[in-house]
């Protein structure tokens, strides 16, 4: 079975993240960029299946700038067998629609039985790319799975939705997205880091994929960007036995109770 894991490079959530005040696009220079944590969990789900099932192949794939090679190297050192990097100047400023179209073309060209993604990225928080890729390819999506079971013919799992817990199932080939409940990601070990250097990492342009339009066809436009002033610290007291009463007084004075 061939499993493709979609990994995205994002600004590290450990630091304040910045937008370019003019374009409204991510200021990539402002932060260290890392593999999105949710994608490492997605990769872990795939790697666990491979560890238990001989003959499984795991490919990490990203669409992103040259710097995004780092997230593929990390995926290879965690255990992915190979990696694909779609990188092209025409992708600068690509929006969700453009990214989804390019991802769909890339996974289709690579060929797969299952695509595993994160349920939402920490920078965009859109949570729509997996559905758009599925729609482009006419495939089922199992969205936001907490648990997952893969057999040679199908994939099934559980998702938490507003109304409760759903158990869902689809025939392969299919796309699944996983939540942060799915798996705790492993750390690359020394051997993994050494062997990663010898694993195949393919670089593809839009032309290689046969995706022509400029920027992959971005459709959304930013009109305005405004920044909210940072919050400042207020009163801080050390409890000496009266802090609870002071807090109750504060809540009354602020008309919060």
């Amino acid at each position, binding site marked *: 079975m061939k499993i493709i894991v979609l990994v995205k490079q994002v600004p590290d*959530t*450990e*630091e*304040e993240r910045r937008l370019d005040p003019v374009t*409204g696009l991510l200021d990539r220079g402002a932060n260290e960029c890392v593999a999105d944590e*949710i994608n490492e969990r997605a990769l872990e789900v795939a790697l666990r299946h491979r560890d238990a099932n001989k003959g499984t192949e795991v490919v990490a794939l990203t669409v992103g700038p040259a710097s995004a090679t780092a997230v593929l190297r990390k995926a290879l050192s965690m255990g992915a067998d190979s990696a694909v990097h779609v990188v092209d100047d025409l992708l600068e400023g690509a*929006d969700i*629609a453009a990214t*989804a179209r390019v991802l769909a073309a890339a996974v289709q060209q690579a060929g797969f039985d299952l695509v595993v993604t994160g349920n939402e990225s*920490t920078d*965009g928080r*859109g*949570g*729509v790319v997996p*559905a758009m890729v*599925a*729609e482009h390819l*006419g*495939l*089922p999506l*199992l*969205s936001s799975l907490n648990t997952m079971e893969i057999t040679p013919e199908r994939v099934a799992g559980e998702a*938490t*939705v*507003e*109304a*409760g*817990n*759903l*158990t*869902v*199932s*689809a025939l392969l080939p299919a796309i699944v997205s996983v939540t942060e*409940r799915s798996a705790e990601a492993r750390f690359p070990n020394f051997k993994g880091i050494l062997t990663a250097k010898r694993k195949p990492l393919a670089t593809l342009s839009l032309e290689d994929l046969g995706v022509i339009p400029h920027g992959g066809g971005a*459709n*959304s*436009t*930013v*009109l*305005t*960007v*405004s*920044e*909210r002033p940072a*919050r400042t*610290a*207020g*009163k*801080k007291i*050390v*409890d000496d036995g009266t*802090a*609870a*009463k002071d*807090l109750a007084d*504060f*809540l*009354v004075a602020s008309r*919060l*109770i």
Partner: protein
Amino acid sequence: MTNVLALIETSASGAITGSAAGLIAAASKLGVPVAVVVTQQGEGAAAVSELGNLGAQHVYLAESPEVGRLMAAAQVEALMSAARELDPSAVILANSVESREIAGRFAVRSGGGLLVDVVDVRTAQDGSAVGVHSIFGGTYTVEATVQSGPTVITLRQGALNEPAASKVPSTTTVSLAVAAGNATTITMVQPVSSGSGRPALRGAAAVVSGGRGLGSKQNFVLVEQLADALGAAVGASRAAVDAGYIEQNSQVGQTGITVSPQLYVALGISGAIQHRAGMQTAKTIVAINKDEDAPIFEVADFGIVGDVFTVVPQLIEALQARSN
């Protein structure tokens, strides 16, 4: 004015869910609000007057035996059918697991442009729909629009609270042909047990959240007791959820729910940047933490350096004394 579709979510039993009011309110801000509901045959009629009360001018009832059996398929088909008939300028959906899938698929199939996780909408001078996004935990507000196709919008749940004025809606009923094809099937639904009697976390006016500092599931009851004394919803940090103190749907933060209450009380929460991303737009923040250097104090309007097991019981007592 052009038509604007709002895709109404229904429960497993076919009832309209809480997101409907916000969706119709957003649609009303952009044009003539049309509620699109997908139900089993003959089960939608009861919803019409309820949707009218929430401000729908027109109700597009689409019936399909596949609703509740297949993920997304019937709803995408219903939106395609409504869009062919009503030529909407925008389509609004909830930013929920199920509706996001429908939004993504509909945008691809209709050639529409997407504006995701918006907290508000407005109409631009040229009449186009503008989505207002709150980015990186409310640090930035970004307004965006799309260039072509219907604007497909996912609305952050709980973001829009003022309902639209009520209407007496007209109705269209259609029977959908859904190709089951290779869609995802729903094999089981376990409804959530609601019955805590507490306000829902999304949209709550007051929230009391607990973190790893509570130490155990048993101790987490303290968070619930303070919430009840304040009439507040209960939230949690990811560490508290990971430790099993409380269900995942109570998680506040980057990968949980974003709340913007009048009052947010953080108990035994360090205030990691990913937690702050989900609560830092609260009007007033109160924090109790025994580590005086905890980052939560950087955003707290009232911070107590102290032990939650000492301070919180005293606070509950003081609140009860006041209400008697």
